[in-house]
């Protein structure tokens, strides 16, 4: 039996090229030009810092943007960080960076904003051009769904593009505040409370406030502590929200599962006893089993009797004759 879908499927388009997207998708055009613009700003910054070799991430970033490479953002990010740390391209620690160590400087803000904006644009463009989500898992007998899902442009410039910029700006401010806290909070387990606010900016001191506890470790501890607290609160809230929004079937399943976990060993014992009893069920006796062959047995007995009688009779006659 064959079922055919006659309606033309317009929601699973083929992957368009970048030029095709330029002409068709206004949102895609915005992302593309934003990404390229971001690359230009980054190119200027890197060229000032390190010269021509430092432009390698820019080349990869632009090519990836135009050629739709999926691994480009990670590669670009790694290369970009490498050239930020080592502008000359050589991993030598004593090379001085042109980027000053400071807090809340405009150059830092612009550089970070532009880089993250490029990443945002790149990933959103991948959704429009390459695939918006992983392919669905196929089960036995199901139709092989290998065509990629592309995000159709159902959002306008105002509803998607501008909010992203606003969110990025807020994120940037939040991160600056977080970084400020990381550099001013001192963790000293000998004191109470163990966390202190220090007026002196930590990055100006290469080593530490205290000789036995380096600044980097302070920052790492504050980072881990802050991340753990935030992730725990948010995770717990989402977990509770998820419980609150359970479907009836899920809730039944959960209660049954808890009940099963509590009584699992006892139920397992019962199941084994049941299996043991089934194995030891009384079988029909030999006579009952043989009853179905009774007719054949009677026939055999009759034939044997006849044979005995015949042979016995013949023997008896021969005996008399002799």
């Amino acid at each position, binding site marked *: *039996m064959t079922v055919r879908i006659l309606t033309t499927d317009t*929601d699973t388009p083929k992957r368009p090229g970048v030029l095709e997207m330029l002409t068709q998708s206004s949102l895609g055009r915005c992302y593309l030009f934003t990404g390229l613009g971001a690359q230009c700003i980054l190119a200027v910054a890197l060229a000032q810092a390190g010269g021509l070799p430092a432009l390698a991430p820019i080349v990869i970033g632009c090519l990836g943007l135009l050629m739709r490479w999926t691994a480009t953002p990670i590669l670009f990010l790694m290369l970009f960080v490498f050239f930020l740390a080592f502008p000359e391209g050589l991993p030598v620690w004593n090379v001085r960076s042109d980027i000053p160590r400071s807090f809340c400087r405009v150059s830092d803000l612009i550089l*970070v904003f532009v880089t993250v904006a490029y990443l945002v644009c790149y990933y959103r463009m991948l959704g429009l051009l390459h695939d918006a989500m992983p392919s669905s898992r196929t089960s036995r007998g199901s139709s092989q769904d290998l065509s990629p899902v592309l*995000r159709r442009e159902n959002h306008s410039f105002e509803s998607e593009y501008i909010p992203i910029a606003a969110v990025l700006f807020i994120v940037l401010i939040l991160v600056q505040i977080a970084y400020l806290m990381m550099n001013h909070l001192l963790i000293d387990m000998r004191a109470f409370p163990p966390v202190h606010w220090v007026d002196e900016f930590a990055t100006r001191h290469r080593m530490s406030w205290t000789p036995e506890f380096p600044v980097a470790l302070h920052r790492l501890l504050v980072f881990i502590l802050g991340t753990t607290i935030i992730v725990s609160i948010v995770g717990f809230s989402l977990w509770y929200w998820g419980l609150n929004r359970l479907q009836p079937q899920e809730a039944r399943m959960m209660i049954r*599962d808890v009940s099963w976990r509590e009584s*699992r060993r006892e139920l397992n014992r019962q199941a084994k006893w049941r299996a043991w009893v089934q194995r030891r069920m009384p079988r029909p006796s030999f006579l009952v089993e043989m009853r179905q062959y009774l007719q054949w047995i009677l026939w055999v007995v009759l034939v044997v009797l006849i044979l005995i009688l015949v042979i016995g009779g013949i023997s008896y006659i021969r005996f008399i004759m002799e």
Partner: protein
Amino acid sequence: MKVLTARGWWFLLAVSLISLFGIVALGWWSATIPLLGLTALVWFAYEWLKFASEYHSTATRLILQRTIQQSHRDAVALWAQTPFTVRVTLSARDGLGLPFVVVEDEIVSSQGTRTATRFQGSLTPETPLEREYVARCDDPGMIRLEGVQIRLSDPAGFFYRRLFLRAPQELLVLPPLVDTRGRPCSRKRFNALPPPGLHRVRRPGNSNELLDLRDYRPGDPPKLIAWRPTARRDKLITREFESEVPVRSQLFVDASEAAQSAVSGIPPVARFAQLASAIAQTAMSNRDYVGLTIFDDVQSEYLAPARSESHLIRITRLLATAAARFPGIRSATPNELTEWAYPVAVKYYPELLQPRVNSRPFGLFWQPVSDSRLLILVFILMSWPLFALQPYILENLSLFVETVVAHGYRWQTLIAIMILPSLLAGLLCLIHGIRGFLPRRARQISRRKQLAALYAELDQAGAGAIEHYWNDDPSFVERSQKFLNGHRVPQPRGGILASQSVAHSAGSIAILARAIQAAVSRARDNELYIITMHLTDDDTPLDPLLKAVRLARARHHHVLLLIPSPHAETPPLPLESSAPKPFAAIAQEAQRKCRERRLDAVRTQFAAVGVPLLRVDATDTISSVMEQFDRLRGVRIR
């Protein structure tokens, strides 16, 4: 359920590394790198929070509505080869809305083939997501619409969720109305024939054709007196006319397991149903009586001949039900069934397989030695010291140790020998228990437990059912078969001659023979029996059927046998066969030739009893059958 995509994992890893590197190693040197890492990380967290809040607020409160229409009416059953419209509406009760939703609606045919359509959009409580599409079923049977699969993702593609809204709906697909091949003829083609719907029987009746002359009996109407013979013989002679009775036919449709298995796309039973429906419609439009008998390996279902419209609808429904039969999973081991059923469960019940509602505790994977026969060995090893402490054994043991071991370590060695079996027993228990954590076995255990819990939920049973399905193999096998058959998952086939595994059982032949005999016993006059049957295998005896057909012929009934062509029955070359291609082609050719020989043998056997054999897929099959109707109409036999 997977939440973070590969893209998300890579991004998280890269950004975390940069953040840590920046904070720990470069924080004193440059603020840009830690700021960059942290900003990207916070943006990632923002996307996660946004996605999670949209999912929790909206995705759990979705409502699915589906309407199916054919010819602008809500459909209770569908007609094959006629387009129908499916309208899917997805709405949210409340929540923040879902900016990017991909919805897949799947139609499952009665043979388990799946056809899906996909659409996408954004969904808010105010604006539901709607989609309308047109589909068509080519053959009779049944379609099942399980529900819609919903896939969610954030715009960057970092997070992904899949859920399934179940709204199972099954619709019969009735055979199509007669096409050009079976177009009914409403005029007499030969004047010699009686009007459509009638044929003459050499019995006294009320037609216009003279049958015989006989002596007048008191009570005969005077108008029947034949005056000329009366004058010639000088006694009253009465005319007798022939009887005109309607043409009756009985269709026998094979719905056995062999006919249900689709070898090349369409199962034979669907073709039989389509053909039988066309014959019935054509014959009934000629005012002929048509009955139906559907037989399988176990029983037969009978519908007496009639010619009303409601009877035609009954016939088409019965044929569609027969065509919708699903061979299903015949037999398999629990592990095989677990492997087949689990992907289906993941597809249709994703939320019921989440660890938070369907857990797999750590202790589940431990394989206790008490469940195996090794327990006796462990018991013996553990109890070894008790035996060894017997004075006689101890004395001999120490003597043995003394002779074997160097001086000075005698008692230490003795103690070691006494403890060693217990250590071995412990090691045995450990190895036996750890086996459950090995990847393959752990996967099987995990899947089986989750399926057991799912079956318990579907059966609305308690926690005991989980343990029951977990421990009891026959119950698990039976429930898994029911689960797979309910979702129309076909038996997986492997190997090039897999179709041969479905042998035409002798049972269906016996059932068919009995059905023909019953039809003969119920017959009123000369009837036409049209048998549509799957080509039997070489070793299937046809004697019961031949006997029944001889009986029908002896009672002056006409019999027609319709069998599919061997070409249609030969399976196509499998794409992923383990056998090399030339061998597969040779085997396919050999199978086709074998079937042709069998068809010739069957034709010869039935020709000997006066039964013509027609091929189901020939273009003129229906017209040939109709010619047989006309011949029967014109024949005057008692």
